[in-house]
């Protein structure tokens, strides 16, 4: 009725008035003068290299050498899938950036700084990541707040807005998606708050607005894993002219989907041309669906199938192993991206041949450490990759107890 419309309009007017009257925000607290110098000195003395993750491995491992970046082809999308350079934009995002409007470091030390960390969602991995972040934050005496949008993009945007409102000294963020990261980056950048992306690579464009990115080099790890994978298949099938493999893919809509299937695919095209891709499917992260998929693959391909490359070393890997056990095919080489407890258990008993080391704690810790380095005024590279490592039966015992 007209009356209700009037009520709505009245509410709108009231809202606008309220907005004009109540414009508020919080101001950042800064340390100045002599306090700043003392803070800087103390925070430079903090030694985080002795910190350990739950699995006994060092929490922070930084590789000092920068990888060799090939030149970007003019149009990567036109290249065939088997060409590694086809995936240039996803793999090498961030190395070559045009930094825009990045705030300068106040160079007054990391102690007491307020840092907001926005992760992607609730998951045991994220719990481990937060633990690692807290360890470094505690070492520096930083005030770390961790927010989780539970995989909801609208909520993550809201959390970004709320954080901007609070004006912390630094924002660390795992973008839920590489593409939407652009607008998120622009918004934080426009507010003048320094921020660092971590764990999930955003598009190259988004990197222009961030200080830097830290995290695992998914493509790089997968390429390494692919080589180990091919070597083992060659060892088990000496002299074979064709090695058929299949990919159990990550959920679509994100760089792991591509990194963990097309990464190894483009690597093997050059490294082991006798490897033939028989099929690629994305059954989700459920063991029973993966089991049916692999059983059907065995029915379809039979002895042609020599290896399976999985994007997940827990539920997917379990399904794969169950299917292989049922069919009695223990000759098939299975590798996966890791590293959960379930995956490591399977490497220990030999059903999984190799997994990648994806330290959750190290991921969060490196992000906070990079923030501290920035507060200390250190010069930061455009990207900081966590060093890669492939876990096999030989060294899997070193990685217990598992982080998650």
């Amino acid at each position, binding site marked *: 009725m007209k009356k209700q419309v009037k009520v709505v309009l009245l509410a709108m007017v009231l*809202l606008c008035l309220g*907005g004009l009257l109540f414009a508020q925000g919080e101001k950042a607290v800064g340390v100045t003068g002599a306090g700043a110098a003392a803070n800087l000195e103390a925070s430079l003395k903090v030694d985080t290299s002795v910190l350990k993750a739950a699995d006994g491995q060092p929490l922070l491992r930084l590789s000092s050498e920068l990888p060799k970046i090939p030149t970007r082809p003019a149009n990567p999308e036109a290249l065939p899938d088997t060409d590694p350079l086809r995936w240039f934009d996803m793999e090498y995002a961030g190395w070559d950036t045009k930094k825009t409007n990045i705030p300068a470091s106040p160079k007054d030390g990391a102690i007491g700084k307020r840092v907001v960390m926005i992760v992607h969602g609730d998951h045991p991995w994220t719990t481990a990541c937060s633990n690692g972040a807290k360890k470094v934050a505690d070492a520096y005496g930083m005030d770390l707040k961790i927010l*989780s949008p539970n995989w909801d993009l609208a909520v993550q945007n*809201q959390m970004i807005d709320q954080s901007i409102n609070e004006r912390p000294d630094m924002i660390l963020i795992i973008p839920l998606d590489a*593409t939407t990261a652009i*607008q998120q980056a622009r918004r934080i950048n426009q507010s003048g708050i320094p921020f660092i992306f971590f764990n999930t690579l955003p*598009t190259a464009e988004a990197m222009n607005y961030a200080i830097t990115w830290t995290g695992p080099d998914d493509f790089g790890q997968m390429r390494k894993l692919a080589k180990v994978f091919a070597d083992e298949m060659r060892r088990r099938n000496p002299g074979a002219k064709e090695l058929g493999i299949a990919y159990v893919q990550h959920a679509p809509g994100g760089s792991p989907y*591509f990194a963990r299937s097309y990464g190894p695919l483009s690597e093997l095209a050059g490294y082991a041309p006798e490897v033939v891709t028989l099929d690629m499917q994305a059954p989700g992260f459920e063991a029973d669906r993966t089991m049916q998929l692999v059983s059907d693959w065995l029915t379809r391909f039979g002895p042609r199938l020599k290896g399976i490359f999985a994007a997940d070393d827990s539920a997917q890997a379990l399904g794969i192993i169950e299917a292989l056990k049922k069919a009695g095919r223990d000759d098939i080489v299975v590798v996966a991206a890791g590293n959960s407890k379930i995956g490591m258990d399977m490497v220990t008993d030999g059903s999984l041949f190799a997994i990648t080391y994806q330290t959750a704690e190290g991921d969060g810790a490196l992000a906070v450490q990079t923030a501290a380095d920035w507060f200390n005024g250190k010069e930061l590279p455009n990207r900081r990759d966590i060093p890669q490592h492939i876990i096999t039966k030989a060294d899997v015992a070193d990685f217990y107890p598992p982080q998650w």
Partner: protein
Amino acid sequence: MMRKNKLDKSKLLALGDRFRIYILFGVIFIFMSLFAPRFFNSYNLTTILRTVSMNATIALGFTIVMICGEMDLSIGRTATFAAVIALTLQKKFGYGISVPIAVLAGAGVGLLNGILVAKIKINSFIVTIGTMTILQGATYTITGGNSVSLSGDKVFAISDFLAKPLLPMLPPRVLLTILFVVVFHLFVSNSQWGRNFYMVGGNRTTAWLAGINTDRITITAFILSSTMAAVAGILFAMESSAATLNMGDNSLMYVVSATIIGGTAMSGGKGGILRSVVAVLSLEMLYTGTILFGFGNEVKIFISGLILALVVLYEAYASYKHEKTIGQRAVLLEELAQAKEKI
């Protein structure tokens, strides 16, 4: 005089029942403003309005479908589908062409749903589960498994325009949403079409016997639902200048919960547009409050369940009382009540 008091009390209760969602809204707003840190300032309220825009728009169409007594579970996936089409085609044709095509695609989904429900007479729960699955596959196929992103000054200009407040606390996307709300509300509560939705939902056979073209009403409801979902998704994607493959998935349960809490019943024939929108706002304020208080996501999930449960129990209680009075004449009841008093 005692009789008059009784009448007042029951009238008050009836009013309270109709406007309970507004009361809930008021309670939540006042509570959060007083106790939640950093809640009552223009920045936070603007953020809430922006976050709410997508689900509120979807709720507009979904409420109409619910009023007709049907369910549309495909709204989330339709939003994603339309957003993906709009952005993918923008690269070749620009927003001017890609947005109308995407809206038409959304309407097409609604048409399909409507025909399957009205003409083939399959239960809407089933049909929309099916279209949900089909849309997921279609969206993945269009993008090849990746999300869609756009960049460039023109695109960013549009996205900035949608996001920055034009009037204080009201950015253009929110203004558009308010416009849609007003239009839909007037449409549903004042026009003949609107009344027909209620009649079809209340008792389909009677509506048909009264000469309403129930098939056409049902199909229109589904078209409206899918179109508004498409519009919501497109606007959200335009503001982010990107569309992810699962952006709409959370909207389904959010909108369903909000519509139920707002007073629209699944049996149909009851409910209203404004109530659903106010319910969406109330839920969003509640969730924002939990984030500001520093609670984890488990609190948010638990509260959603609790509120939904309370609303369902309340509805059940109300219909239980209603059932008790079926077939009983009001005058006799009053006489009985008066007789009891005298004793």
